[in-house]
């Protein structure tokens, strides 16, 4: 709940990750415990030399204590106290969004006690999102514990008990209308708006047509295409909320001495995205052509099927963090320059806009649309192929590069200033 618990979160991480079989980001794991066990059994030197102590990530996964639990994630952040009270409330809402996200089976929360981000507020936020909430949730308060040792001991034991509960849940087939797909881009280039983004837009249209949900975020990157989005809003109410959020955000950037116009990064500009409107018009292609059923402010839960707009910054990590908080169970992320971004609770599928990137950074790219630029593929065909790929990821058949690399980025959006 608050930055001063980050060290305790790290202690939990080292206590749980390897021993429960979730440290799988390296090519191989050295299992010294086997040597110790063999030695204690009285195994000879020759026997010790013959023992198998190198394990692949696959070996580790297959021998997990809780095989139905795909991961244990340890989220730290720099917020929760100091600064605007509103930011702490937003953080509580975001954490409630993570805890109630269908990808999450349970959570252990470390609270100090006196911080701005109040436990009661977060509990309310959880109830608001899910009145039937019944996942294992343990909230521990350090100021109520006898010592840090007691505190950690309690946290480890309760998390372990929560994992026993979580392991009772089995993966089951689900219809595509349960999919909530985040539409994200980062490190865009001059081809993003021609290949990767319209491909994702077509995939979004397919998911919407199937009764599913997609969420387009990054409001500074919708600057210049507002009229098209307003025209696509199902009712005036959504259009009014959208323009209100856009205008408020824009006014704040100006008050702080900047503007949406300054959004394109030096890398964007070098690769052909020279104005914010140019970047935006390409970025908005991710949202396809379907009607907009709802407009959400940051941390609001997506409740309506169809295409939703979510107010987040254009910063890709702040935005993916927000998408998972609003209920995305998979995030599709287009890039032209290449970025390793991932998320702790939602798989992030990295989609390259050009062949050169997918070759050069194949370790971080999952899906390539560069063949549209070279004329070998159409946007529609690639969009259909991407939907099939998303289904495989959602079914746990394919692991994303970000997941394999343990790229668990989590940056809550801080809108206020520090006090």
């Amino acid at each position, binding site marked *: 709940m608050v930055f001063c618990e980050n060290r305790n979160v790290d202690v939990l991480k080292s206590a749980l990750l390897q021993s429960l079989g979730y440290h799988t980001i390296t090519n191989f794991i050295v299992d010294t415990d086997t040597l110790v066990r063999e030695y204690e059994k009285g195994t000879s030197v020759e026997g010790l030399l013959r023992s198998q102590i190198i394990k692949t990530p696959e070996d580790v996964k297959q021998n997990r204590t809780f095989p139905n639990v795909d991961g244990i994630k340890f989220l730290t952040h720099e917020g929760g106290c100091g600064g605007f009270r509103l930011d702490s409330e937003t953080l509580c809402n975001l954490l409630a969004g993570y805890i109630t996200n269908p990808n999450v089976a349970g959570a252990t929360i470390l609270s100090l006690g006196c911080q701005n981000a109040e436990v009661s507020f977060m509990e309310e936020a959880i109830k608001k999102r899910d009145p039937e909430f019944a996942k294992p949730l343990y909230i521990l308060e350090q100021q109520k514990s006898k010592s840090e040792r007691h505190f950690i001991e309690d946290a480890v034991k309760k998390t372990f008990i929560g994992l026993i509960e979580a392991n009772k849940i089995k993966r089951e087939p689900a219809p*595509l209308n349960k999919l909530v797909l985040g539409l994200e881009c980062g490190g865009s*280039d*001059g*081809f993003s*708006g*021609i290949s990767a983004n319209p491909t994702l837009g*077509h995939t979004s*249209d*397919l998911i*919407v*047509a*199937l009764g599913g949900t997609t969420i387009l975020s990054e409001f500074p990157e919708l*600057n*210049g*295409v*507002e*009229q*098209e989005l*307003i*025209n*696509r809003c199902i009712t*005036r109410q959504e*259009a*009014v909320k959208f*323009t209100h959020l856009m205008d408020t955000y824009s006014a704040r950037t100006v008050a702080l001495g900047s503007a949406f*116009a300054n959004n394109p990064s030096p890398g964007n*500009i070098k*690769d*052909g995205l*020279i*104005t*914010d*409107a*140019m970047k*935006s*018009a*390409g970025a908005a*292609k991710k949202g396809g*052509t*379907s*009607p907009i059923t709802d407009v959400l402010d940051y941390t609001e839960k997506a409740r309506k099927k169809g295409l939703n707009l979510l107010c987040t910054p254009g910063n890709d990590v702040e935005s993916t963090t927000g998408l998972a908080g609003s209920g995305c169970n998979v995030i599709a992320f287009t890039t*032209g320059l290449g970025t390793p971004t991932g998320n702790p609770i939602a798989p992030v599928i990295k989609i390259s806009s050009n062949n050169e990137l997918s070759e050069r950074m194949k370790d971080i790219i999952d899906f390539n649309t560069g063949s549209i*630029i*070279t*004329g*070998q593929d159409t946007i*529609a065909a690639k969009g*259909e192929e991407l*939907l099939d790929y998303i289904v495989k990821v959602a079914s746990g058949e394919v692991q994303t590069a970000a997941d394999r690399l343990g790229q668990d980025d989590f940056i809550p959006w801080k809108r206020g200033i520090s006090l």
Partner: protein
Amino acid sequence: MPKKYVQIDPRDNIIVALTDLKIGTKAIINNEQIILQEEVKGKHKFALIDLQIGDEIYMYGALVGKTTKPIRKGESITIENIVHASANYQFGMEKSRWSPPDVTAWI
């Protein structure tokens, strides 16, 4: 043979290079020939027509900038000759209609 350049929307007055294009390259858009006045790298854009200072730049059919210098047909579009500009918006315009794509393959 892959395309070397593309006009994304018929309203656009700038053309995207899909590969590095040399000076003197001839591009044909809507039966009109454009001769590149300078090298244009892939991902970057060049002018379809002669543009005066203050002219609006369209890409994806949307207003994406305004010129700050005259740009001749076939010259490249850079941060030196255009700045950000975006369209205003209002309520009550015509509602978009949507025809969903065929999804029978996934049902």
